[in-house]
């Protein structure tokens, strides 16, 4: 059966008592892409991952993961995915190596093959030197890398990462993302990742879904999302009266919100760097001399604000999540 979607969610819903944690969401993830779920804590990101990875059963709807139904064929789903949960899940009393071998056994991987893969993966995440140390001696970044290696032991087609950079410092965060990127490039792994860091979603995801209060509010490439709110912001400094330039530009197609702001002519346009030369020509023909042009892409912050009506603040959704966070921070500090 040829498949076009690595993940296909169909009216996926989870209800906890009166609370709709995930509210009839639909989305497709293509094979080989990095798909980001962006939203504040408590938005339903982790619940979605738990359903897709068969840890929690959906209240309503379902999803196909690697072509298998998460409700009807959970065992098949589990075999084809790798999961890196939000919390650290390795056994602290065991060494990194032992943890990898344990998880390998649970996937039924023969010992010889498991050993080869463990060596490879420890290399990939640069933990070979610490393989025989107990996990309790690892730093936060090391633990996260081990978790990623554990998530990859069964050569999954699809890797789920739940807040892979939560509680880590900026440098470690960048390193984690570089591993993720390598996976995509070298192994062609499809990656489903949740995050509440706007810059990370913007920088590393091929496509993003913005989720809030259990609903998907917008979906697309970071570029599409930014353009969807009116495109880049272009500011032009002209010689002479800016109002005359405004008059000229107001009749140009594709520009919106043209006005004078602090002596600059400002407007929004899709793909500002391509539009700039055209605008320059139009203004020159109308006899307006351009002194300078600056083009600014809207940030994901603005995109998020546009769709959710609030900015993405650090607010803790549930006690559970707060506890998980505290554990991670405690471990990361050691």
């Amino acid at each position, binding site marked *: 059966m040829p498949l076009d979607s690595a993940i296909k969610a169909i009216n996926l819903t989870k209800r906890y008592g009166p609370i709709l944690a995930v509210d009839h969401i639909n989305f497709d993830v293509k094979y080989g892409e990095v798909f980001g779920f962006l939203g504040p804590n408590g938005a339903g990101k982790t619940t979605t991952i738990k359903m897709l990875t068969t840890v929690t059963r959906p209240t309503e709807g379902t999803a196909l993961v690697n072509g298998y139904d998460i409700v009807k064929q959970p065992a098949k789903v589990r075999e084809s995915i790798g999961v890196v949960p939000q919390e650290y899940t390795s056994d602290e009393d065991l060494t990194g190596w032992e943890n990898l071998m*344990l998880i390998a056994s649970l996937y039924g991987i023969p010992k010889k093959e498991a050993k080869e893969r463990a060596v490879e993966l420890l290399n990939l995440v640069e933990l070979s030197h610490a393989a025989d140390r107990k996990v309790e001696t690892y730093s936060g970044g090391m633990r996260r890398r081990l978790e990623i290696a554990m998530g990859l032991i069964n050569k999954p087609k699809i890797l789920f990462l739940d807040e892979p950079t939560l509680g880590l410092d900026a440098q470690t965060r960048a390193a984690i993302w570089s591993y993720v990127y390598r996976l995509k490039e070298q192994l062609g792994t499809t990656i489903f990742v949740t995050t509440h860091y706007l810059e990370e979603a913007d920088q590393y995801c091929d496509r993003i879904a913005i989720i809030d209060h259990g609903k998907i509010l917008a979906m697309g490439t970071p570029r599409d999302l930014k353009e969807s709110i009116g495109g880049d912001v272009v500011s032009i400094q002209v010689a002479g009266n800016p109002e005359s330039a405004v008059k000229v530009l107001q009749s140009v197609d594709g520009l919106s919100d043209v006005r004078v702001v602090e002596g600059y002519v400002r407007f929004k346009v899709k793909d500002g760097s391509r539009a700039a030369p055209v605008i320059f020509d139009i203004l020159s023909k109308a006899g307006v001399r351009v002194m300078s042009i600056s083009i600014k892409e809207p940030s994901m912050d603005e995109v998020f604000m546009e769709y959710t009506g609030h900015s993405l603040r650090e607010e803790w959704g549930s006690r559970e999540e707060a506890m*998980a966070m505290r554990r991670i921070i405690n471990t990361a500090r050691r």
Partner: protein
Amino acid sequence: MSNPLHGLWALTDRELKKWYKAPVVLIVTLIQPIVWLAFFGKSMNMTSIFTNGSVNIPGLNIPKQVIDQIAQAYLKSTFGTTDYFSFLAASMVAQITFFTAMNSGMSIVWDRRLGVLGKLLTTPVPRGSIIMGKVLNSVIRSLAQATIVLLIAVLLGMKFNTKLTPLEFALSIIGVYAALTLLSLGFSSLYLTLALRSTNWQSQMAIINLLNMPLMFASNSFYPIKMMPWWLRPVAYVNPLTYVNDVTRGLLLGVSSFSVPMDFLYLTIFAVVFSAIGIVLSWRFLSEA
């Protein structure tokens, strides 16, 4: 997916590693039965109460020999043997198995809190294996610890049935291990099932402490059931500890209140029922987090 037992053994081995790599844990778990044996067993020793004292009742001039004879007869009729220390020591192997089983419930609470359980649930390993791995670990630990307790008991003066031939003795030991295995299967499954949904280790500790002493005293561990008040006897009769103690005493001391085959029948039912409940509920409850 290859052999499903593969995952089960990996999970059991994971738990065992924590134990044999940390001798402190092993030593600490042995302390309690050793305290019972060495402190309680050696001091509160019924045999010495009745035979070592020089009782002299004014007005009656009873020869010591007669008093001793009477004491021996009373001991024999109460405990089935004149050697109270061996009577107590035989119950300690069941005791340590029981304690180990109780603590196995804690490990699933920790696994949940530390996120390990969440990870295990995303792997294709059968849910029942997650529970049974812990149960098996508990069984193996218990047998190893019971062996140590038995050796210490012998050093402290426990005496086996002298009529046993070496072969019979070996078979008796195997029988005792079989009974302990059944006890451990049942109790570990029970405590793990109680802990399936729990995230709170304190409430789990409370459950352990709630059941620990009452189950110990409501069994024939320290005294025979016939010494109990009528309202306590029914508890002792359903308490699996009673039956394991009966097996141990029957096989090693030659003192049995019921019959050993009946004991095994009861223990087998206990083990099968609670293991089955544990496996069924783990499929049902581990998933819906």
